[in-house]
């Protein structure tokens, strides 16, 4: 607490001291503008940050005020921060389509109509496919995340396509080449869009966690375990020993739709030198889901291994999203192809200081 107080006081002191330097040379013209969206974006990030700080400090505060310590765990952060994250996602969709300084209603309609229809259609499709957002708030959050992600994706794609078409019309290139040229002309802007795209891919990956399943079972020879569309059959289990470590492992055949699709070997090692146990997880990762098989240990009474299986949908999307963010950052770091210099009209020059209103 003392550390936080010192940091806060120091920052406040330097803010007050340098206030005049921080004053902007520009002014905001409208609440519906890109500048305002940045402000709201920063506010939401600040609220999310405050929630983490508040949740971390509240047990101490509670002990001080009530004399009893409370736990502030995942349910608190999920309930408070998920809506904030959804608002951030909405701003990710809205921000790039807002014009600098002021956005007209006409422009909003023109830019948002198709992405909004696409997002709504995705929502309807998911409900038709069996998603029930009214049964649990986590399903509702998941549906909203996917819908907003589609909204962001469509806005980003529409930005590329519209810009690409304009260049294509002037240069005669195909759409893809035009979009590459477009991104090369303003790498920071279009690299940023690619980063946005990566973020929504990650968000869709997070939304899948609502449908996580897991199962734990003691499995002897030929024992079966079913989880989601998969059936795991324990083919064998054994022990091994080498100078570095001793290990116990199982051979699990994985079936899907009656067909064997993989053989996984979850293992548990005991390293002799460090006297540490380590779990070597067997993972079958696909864009649809991760089948994550853990050798948890052995039942000492029966000698059979205890196997825990997690079926986590869309995990690969999180990794793909990270690579897209890295690619977007690299694009943003590339210098622009041809910097555009527009000379200011002579009649706009040399107005007195303070003019403009």
């Amino acid at each position, binding site marked *: 607490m003392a550390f936080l107080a010192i940091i806060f006081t120091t920052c406040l002191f330097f803010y007050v001291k340098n206030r005049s330097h921080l004053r902007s040379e520009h*002014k905001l013209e409208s609440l519906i503008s890109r500048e305002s969206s940045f402000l709201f974006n920063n506010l939401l990030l600040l609220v999310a940050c405050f929630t983490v700080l508040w949740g971390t400090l509240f047990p101490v505060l*509670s002990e001080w005020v009530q004399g009893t310590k409370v736990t502030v765990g995942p349910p608190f952060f999920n309930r408070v921060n998920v809506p904030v994250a959804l608002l951030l996602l909405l701003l990710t969709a809205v921000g790039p389509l807002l014009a600098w300084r002021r956005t007209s209603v006409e422009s909003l309609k023109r830019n948002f109509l198709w992405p909004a229809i696409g997002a709504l259609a995705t929502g309807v499709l998911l409900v038709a496919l069996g998603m029930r957002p009214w049964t649990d708030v986590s399903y509702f959050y998941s549906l909203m995340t996917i819908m907003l992600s589609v909204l962001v994706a469509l806005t980003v794609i529409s930005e590329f396509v519209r810009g690409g078409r*304009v260049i294509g019309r002037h240069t005669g290139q195909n759409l893809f080449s035009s979009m590459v040229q477009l991104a090369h002309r303003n790498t920071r802007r279009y690299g940023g869009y690619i980063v946005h795209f990566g973020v929504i891919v990650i968000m869709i990956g997070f939304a899948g966690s609502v449908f996580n399943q897991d199962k734990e079972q003691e499995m002897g020879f030929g024992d079966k375990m079913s989880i989601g569309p998969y059936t795991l059959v324990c083919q064998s289990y054994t022990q091994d020993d080498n100078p570095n470590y001793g290990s116990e492992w199982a051979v699990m055949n994985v079936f899907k739709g009656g067909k064997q699709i993989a053989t996984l070997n979850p293992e548990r090692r005991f390293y002799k030198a460090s006297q540490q146990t380590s779990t070597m997880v067997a993972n079958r990762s696909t864009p649809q889901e991760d089948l994550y098989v853990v050798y948890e240990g052995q039942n000492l009474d029966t000698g059979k291994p205890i196997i825990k299986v997690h079926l986590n949908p869309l995990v690969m999307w999180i990794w793909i999203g990270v690579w897209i963010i890295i690619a977007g950052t690299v694009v943003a770091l590339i210098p622009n192809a041809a910097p555009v210099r527009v000379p200011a009209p002579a009649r706009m020059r040399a107005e007195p200081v303070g003019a*403009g209103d």
Partner: protein
Amino acid sequence: MEISRLTTSGKGTASSRAVTTDPRLRARFTSVRGRLPDAAPSRKQASILLRRSLPLIFLTLAVFTLLGAGDESARVNDLGHRMMCVCGCNQILLECNHVGCAYSERMRGELIAAVDRGDNDDLTLQGFVQKYGTTVMAAPTKTGFNRVAWIMPYLVLVLGLAMVTLIVRAWRSRPLVLPAGAVAAVHGAELEHFRDQARKDTEI
């Protein structure tokens, strides 16, 4: 076990209904009714009504019991996600994945027993708090001072939104400070003219 027992009961009642609708038995039953005193028919009618409604009663009971079974499992899942394992792993009770964790196994057993006993959610959670302390709850309760934990982030959000809105309004009305020799911004009709020109040029 519970489900198979109930299913068997259902089948039994279905067959008893078939007996009463058999025309031969119905005829025998009518003849018996004919020999009974005057008061008897109403009792017999009640009996028929009861026998005919038995399948419905059993079906209703089965449905409600099955629904109840689903409810119990959902309640265990819900309550188990509102509590922490107290072994020190800092995980949600139903997500503690330590093989042979003495605490989580025992606590899960106690939770299932409480739900089976028919204790309501508050009573069940209160029992755990009394036994393991307030830290067993995964999130602050919504009573007393703990309410502050829930209110504060939303309050900060609302105040922040109000403040940002006020700031934007204040910045809209303040005079623009330009460094000497800078180009002034255009406004109003002139700005719209430039916007239209840009749209026409870029076709965006």
